[in-house]
């Protein structure tokens, strides 16, 4: 294909159509960001305001009223630690299945995936009761464990499919040369599998950050994540759209920007390498 296509009616039409649809899909998000910088009155003005003098008051107000930073801290801690823990467990498992295939490998993989298909709500009562009994309700530890476990099947699958692309011969050669397991891991597997490890980590970070079911049901004021904080803005009488938008903006901005930079790896990772 030519790097610079000639300007034709078809190209103009396609460009206009693509941009129109894209702006339509992006509009709600753009509107959210705009509203975050409005006053409450501007936020509900009829007709809606597109141009206005932006204010930063909402940011101060959100932090003052609902301790944004505490929730942000909870989100960062739970998503990062659950991802790291999950990788530590999933990586060896994926390695084992990718390079030491047995006749059960396929069944184990399918079984792991099937645990992900169980709706989380199926485990709600037992997990709630267990957490209650162990005194772990409203703690970060409970969320870390639950996030880690619910993402584990996806991690194993993604790492497995990325490692399948590494030729077994390279590892065998290293072993023949007398490399210990640690050397094999450190010098061969890690450099070659970095891409897969990276995209798996990214995806699980996003999933944990956005996870809402468990954070809504297992946490309250102390260990709540940003997803739970935003839900608390859902009061029926509250027309505090500017503050709601501002809190939402602060909750999604880190992960959306993060997602922009890693979208290619993410999408490829999430298809378990099935779409190239």
């Amino acid at each position, binding site marked *: 294909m030519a790097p610079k296509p000639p300007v034709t009616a078809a190209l103009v039409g396609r460009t206009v159509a693509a941009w129109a649809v894209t702006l339509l*899909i992006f509009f709600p998000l753009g509107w959210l960001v705009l509203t975050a910088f409005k006053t409450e009155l501007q936020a509900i003005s009829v007709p809606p305001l597109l141009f206005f003098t932006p204010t930063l008051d909402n940011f101060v107000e959100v932090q003052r009223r609902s301790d944004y930073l505490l929730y942000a801290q909870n989100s960062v801690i739970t998503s990062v630690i659950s991802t790291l823990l999950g990788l530590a467990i999933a990586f060896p498992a994926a390695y084992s299945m990718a390079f030491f295939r047995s006749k059960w490998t396929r069944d184990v993989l399918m079984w792991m995936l099937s645990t992900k298909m169980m709706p989380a*709500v199926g485990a709600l009562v037992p997990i709630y009761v267990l957490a209650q009994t162990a005194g772990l309700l409203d703690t970060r530890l409970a969320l870390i464990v639950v996030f880690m476990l619910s993402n584990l099947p996806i991690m194993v699958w993604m790492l497995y499919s990325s490692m399948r692309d590494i030729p077994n011969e390279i590892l065998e050669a290293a072993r023949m040369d007398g490399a*210990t397991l640690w050397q094999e891991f450190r010098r061969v597997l890690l450099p070659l599998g970095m891409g897969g490890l990276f995209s798996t980590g990214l995806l699980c970070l996003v999933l944990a950050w956005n996870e809402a079911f468990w954070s809504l049901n297992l946490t309250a004021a102390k260990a709540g994540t940003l997803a739970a904080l*935003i839900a608390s803005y859902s009061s029926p009488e509250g027309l505090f759209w500017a503050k709601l938008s501002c809190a939402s903006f602060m909750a999604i901005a880190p992960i959306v920007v*993060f997602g922009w930079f890693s979208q290619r790896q993410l999408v490829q990772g999430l298809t378990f390498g099935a779409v190239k």
Partner: protein
Amino acid sequence: MFRLRSSLTPNGTAGAAAAPIAVPGVARAEVNRFLPRALLAPAVITLFLWMIVPLVMTIYFSVIRYNLMQPGEVGFIGLANYEYFVTDPSFWTAIINTLLLLGSVIAITVFGGVALALLIDDPFPGRGVVRVLLISPFFVMPTVNALLWKHMMMNPIYGVLAQVWHFFGATPVDWMADWPLLSVIIMVAWQWLPFATLIFVTALQSMNREQLEASRMDGARYFQQLRYLYVPHLGRSIAVVIMIETIFLLSVFAEIFTTTGGGPGDASTNLAFLIFKQALLNFDAGVASAGALVAVVLANIVAVFLIRMIGKNLD
């Protein structure tokens, strides 16, 4: 040279476990029979516990009287909880809503995603920016997604959609009250359409351009190209999109929790939300557990279809 794959027999562990002496070369072959299992074990064990402990507890809770508010009054009541859950009129509504939500969102995202992917497949000015803007909704957490649509978009007085309706001289729609399930479908589809689009765009990049060019030379119309070249090429990625979306869509919860609360009535209650209502709003852990098992069975039925589908498509 030993073949690692064949050296791993089902009965091979017992002897190998006793010989982890690090003599390079020779001993490694022995260690290799034990090692894969040791590396696999943590993942398998934790996942097994994660699956079996809640499952056993759920089965137990489902046959006893168990109200979280009255922890003293526990007793075996057989299948009464199941009977209660399944004969509750909300049950069938919830099943239908679950499947409607799943089916509509998959239909919207697959058809919309393929159309969008075809639209942005060839280069045009600003394609990189379009890609980034398009994927954004996928990274938005469900609670933000829900509140954004409920208030700023769908509010019947101040919402943007109401203004659009006014502009065209129509009466604004009270989305949450009149079309609760459709509202939830719109929110969820908005989140997943970008994902599907990006997968399809990625898949289209491996289309055979020469084949396309040749078919064009031979006078194939765009529709024919679509039918015989694009759609078959996308088959595998469509399967992947359906599989991944099903995993996440069967348990849509936060969007319903934060917007309609399942209502009005049961109009937007799906199975996940119905069970939640029984457990944490009615405090009836027994009925909720029975419901959870029903949900697990439903998920398994869907999973069997899916695993067959991926089994065919991922090998």
